[in-house]
């Protein structure tokens, strides 16, 4: 009787629970006993989200556990949540394009990097990062690729209506299935969120942008009368795109400051 315990942790909105659900269902379809328990706070977005999965040959007696065999960390802010579930036997996979190797007190058996967000952004689309990780963990667990795709289609049927998205999602899983993990030479966390205050100057205006507060809701884009705000390639600390301001177009009307629910943006005219 072999039991595999997997813990997946990330930020809400990254697709942690979808990943857990697909994995659990695929294991069940493969003739194994599986349990999947989601754990998250009262917030619907932007807080750590954890999935507990147990896969066993015969039956699962209790769905929660203390030490995991596999720990998948999708976001640096979720490291603290998983740290208690890591022992010397745990193999840790982390998103090396989002975070530096996690600092964990107990040394895990293996620390493996997978630059999922970077790959997803370059080859597919940024939200496909969880599918790449899904492909990888499925291979490690010995679940067939076709089965994983079949379950992905059932779980995400509403989101995979577009043929293009469907093809890209399929190839993201295949890509993840084939990829080799980084063992020591981790790729640089190029998707690390910007910190501090971004000062913008030019065209007699001064702008402030705080990436740690921006949640990428897009209200500033919708409310800008001059069309000076658009999404940039940089990400904030919630793994969403930061706004980019064209100060030459900006009229300093103050709408973005007035409507920003998070207090992350402000543009003023320079005092003369």
């Amino acid at each position, binding site marked *: 009787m072999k039991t595999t315990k997997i813990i997946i942790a990330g930020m809400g909105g990254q697709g942690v629970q979808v990943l857990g659900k697909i994995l659990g269902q695929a294991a069940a379809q493969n003739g194994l006993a599986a349990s999947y328990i989601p754990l998250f706070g009262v*917030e619907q977005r932007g807080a750590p989200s954890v999935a507990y999965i147990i896969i066993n040959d015969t039956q699962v007696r209790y769905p929660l556990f203390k030490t995991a065999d596999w720990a998948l960390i999708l976001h640096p802010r979720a490291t603290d949540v998983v740290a208690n579930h890591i022992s010397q036997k745990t193999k840790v996979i982390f998103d090396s394009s989002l975070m530096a190797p996690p600092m964990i007190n107990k040394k895990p058996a293996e620390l493996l990097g997978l630059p999922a967000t970077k790959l997803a952004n370059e080859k597919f689309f940024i939200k496909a990062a969880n599918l790449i990780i899904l492909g990888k963990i499925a291979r490690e667990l010995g679940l067939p690729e076709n089965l994983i795709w079949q379950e992905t289609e059932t779980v995400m049927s509403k989101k995979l209506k577009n043929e293009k998205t469907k093809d890209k999602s399929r190839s993201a899983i295949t890509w993840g299935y084939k990829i080799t993990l980084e063992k020591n030479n981790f790729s640089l966390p190029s998707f690390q969120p910007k910190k501090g*205050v971004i000062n913008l100057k030019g065209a007699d205006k001064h702008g402030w942008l705080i990436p740690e507060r921006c*949640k990428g809701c*897009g209200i500033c884009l919708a409310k800008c009368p001059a069309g000076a705000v658009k999404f940039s390639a940089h990400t904030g600390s*919630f793994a969403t795109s930061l706004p980019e301001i064209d100060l030459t177009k900006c009229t300093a009307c103050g709408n973005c400051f007035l409507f920003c629910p998070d207090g992350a943006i402000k543009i003023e005219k320079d005092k003369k």
Partner: protein
Amino acid sequence: MDNLFPKSWKAETKPHLFCPGCGHALALKQLGLAVDELGCQKNMALGIDIGCSLLAWDFFNIDTTQTHHGRTVPVMVGYKMARPERLAVAYMGEGGAYAIGLQSLLHAALRNSPVMVIVINNENYAMTGGQMSPTTPIGKITTTSPNGKEIIFGPGFKGPEIIRQLAAKNAFISRGSTANPLVLKILIKKALENQIKNNSFSFLEILSFCPTNWRTDATASLSQLKEMEKLYPLGEFN
């Protein structure tokens, strides 16, 4: 960088716990600015309800208490009785105010208790996943009304209009919208001043949006809010 949000906001707890693009934060921003302008930050207490409104529990540098579902108004009425020199503000969603806590709200209005009640109306129970609420209009699709809300569940509940029928003459009853924050701030200030000057009940419903459960982006949320404003007329009710 404190010039990006009101001084009464607690900087350590930002970014706050609301979803991206949440209307609650927009309303709380205007409440913060109004408190800044009146300078009553150290002289007030904020009561919050169960639901998404409870995520404001560490939002302000203001004495805040959290109560049972729908019981924010009576708790703040009690607070005001014990400390009449301080301002009492109850902040709740429409589920707490118009469903489970309606009798508490109506009786506070009937007694003309000197508290201020802010109700955020986003047409659903947002924290539990977007179920139908008293203010959901007929035909709107939610998780508990997958074919659109039917007439047997009643049309949209119009809180300020009903409370106007039984509140005292000097009570301040109004409805604002997060689509126009500047007007909203004026309404909040008037409601707070009404409590200071007239020592009477003030009620403010704020139309808001819920991008997570409406499944809309920023542009679509704002245009749906415009639809809401047609159903729920804005302004002061005298």
